[in-house]
């Protein structure tokens, strides 16, 4: 495995390219970046005084495996996914990237902050979806694969009417 600072640079590059791919709605290219074991998790958050209690165990808005994501993409491609007709115009800004080694030699942990700006419909003001991502990336010969994403949305009450976009 490469040195962690090298990996940091590569991971940040991976996240930036991934963000561009999603903004350009190249969902099949994005799908190819997902590990077969992908666990894509968007927990439910509640207002609590202790941070540790803000995410009730096992409560999620979304918890997808690869087959779920495949269905979501097929849905978006159907042209009848009305939540995304016309598709949201998005900008994902990714920063505060931190990389750490894990117990597994081929897996690194990448924590980042992501602000997703989403303009739906035609002329409505856009929604902002702020997210802290906790990712696991698998390091392979041909680059990274996204193995796990836990997307912690800052809102307890979501301020966008649906999660028709990937976080």
């Amino acid at each position, binding site marked *: 495995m490469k040195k962690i600072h090298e990996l940091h640079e590569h991971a940040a590059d991976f996240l930036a390219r991934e963000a561009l791919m999603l903004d350009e709605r190249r969902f099949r290219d994005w799908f190819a970046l997902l590990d077969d074991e992908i666990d894509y998790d968007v927990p*439910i958050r509640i207002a609590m005084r202790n941070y540790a209690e803000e995410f*009730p165990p096992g409560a999620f808005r979304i918890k997808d495996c690869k087959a779920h994501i495949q269905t979501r993409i097929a849905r978006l491609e159907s042209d009848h996914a009305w939540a995304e007709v016309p598709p949201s115009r998005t900008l994902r800004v990714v920063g505060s990237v931190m990389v750490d080694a894990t117990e597994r030699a081929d897996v690194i942990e990448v924590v980042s902050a992501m602000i997703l700006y989403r303009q739906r419909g035609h002329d409505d003001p856009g929604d902002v979806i702020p997210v802290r991502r906790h990712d696991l990336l698998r390091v392979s010969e041909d680059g990274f694969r996204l193995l796990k994403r836990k997307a912690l949305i800052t809102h307890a009450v979501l301020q966008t*009417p649906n999660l028709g976009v990937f976080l």
Partner: protein
Amino acid sequence: MINYDLIYPGNPDQYLDDLCERVSQGMDEGLLPVEVFRDDAVFRAEMERIFTRNWIFVAHTSEIPEKGDYVLRRIGIDKVIVTRDDDDQINVLLNHCRHRGSELCHQDKGNTRHFKCPYHGWVYRNNGDWAGAPHLKDAYGGPLDKKEWSLLRAAKVEAIHGFVFASLSEDVPPLREYLGGAAWMFDALFGLHPDGMKVLKEPERFVVKADWKSGAENFSGDAYHVSTAHLSASLSEFIPGVNQVSSLASGYDFGNGNSFIGHALPELIAPMFDLWGYPPEYRDQFDLSQLDEVQLEMLKKVPPTIGTVFPNFSFLRFPQPDVPGAMPIPFTSIRMWQPVAPGVMELWNYELEYAFLPESFHDKAYMAGQFGFGSGGIFEQDDTAVWEGIAKVAASPWALSKGMRLHYQQKRGGPDPDWKGPGEFHPSIYGEYSQERFWRRWVKEMTEGKRASKHAEPCDDQGGCQ
């Protein structure tokens, strides 16, 4: 964006009288004036005339199993604390201090014996009673009356199969009587095992720019939209037959804004999908001895799958795969259409399941429900989008100046004359009869509520302010 309302000659009171009249007459013709879906006066009147004087669902008992447990909920636009007090009684309390009105409860859930106000430190017991204040002797000369200065408390709180409803008005019939035929439906949906249902996880909440009534009305009887609005579920091959869903749907209408859709699931999917397709090893443990013959027949042939209890409680129980390609299993989702502002709601969605079922089944049902009907649900996403347009046309100068009315004129096959259960059973869901009843109930509450709210007394004594 501007919340456009028509400039109306006359005061809001007259405007509302006139609107109720127009909705009522409109329903005689199968037409609904668009402005009901987004209008300041309508919204204000709904808060006073509907939400403060009807039974409103607030929580399920399984969310507050222990003494001291509480959850923060809503009744209309008010935040209320639903507590299980030290005497094991459930209370529904306004989340505002009686001294100057600050908010007391600052978490979505928890366990406590007391709520302490952050402003001057008044303290209340978890049943709402006033319990103390700092510097008591110097500031007040002694304790205040604990009932007189208790938190405002819902006049009535009752539960049916664990579903806790509260009424801020004393003047309501007992819950079962009030629910009428819907209570009979609750028995068939939620009363199949002595251990009852339990909430699996915290409700998820999301703001939708649509009126609360769009969701309530949809769940009261709109199976028609499924083959268009949810066609992507079929095109993505997740649920191939989704475009057949409205043809094999029926209606159970209790005539008061409480109505249910039923689906001939054994016909629609496969014979084993009677009883919503609960797996045989589990349904053997159901105790159906409390059900009458009509209910038993109903669960076998056309189980209730979707429904609304006026004003803003809906449910959904439908078989769906937890993972694409898997065998469909039933999940049970409760939805609340929480009004926030004219044309804006918070959608609350949570999954319940029979408590006796193993955790592995709970997990699958939770997955199935959230994948279909959570904020990222592949069905519910599209509802949030189509309902937005309704709230927009309700504030359209063009539509309002032309008196635009929406179409409620589907062909009606009529109710089954041999139906032995309460209310009416309509073999076909086409006809929009349940939606019509929803709007007639709305007019009734908006009209009767006007008289009631005129007589509101100043609140200067009891916590209940009756």
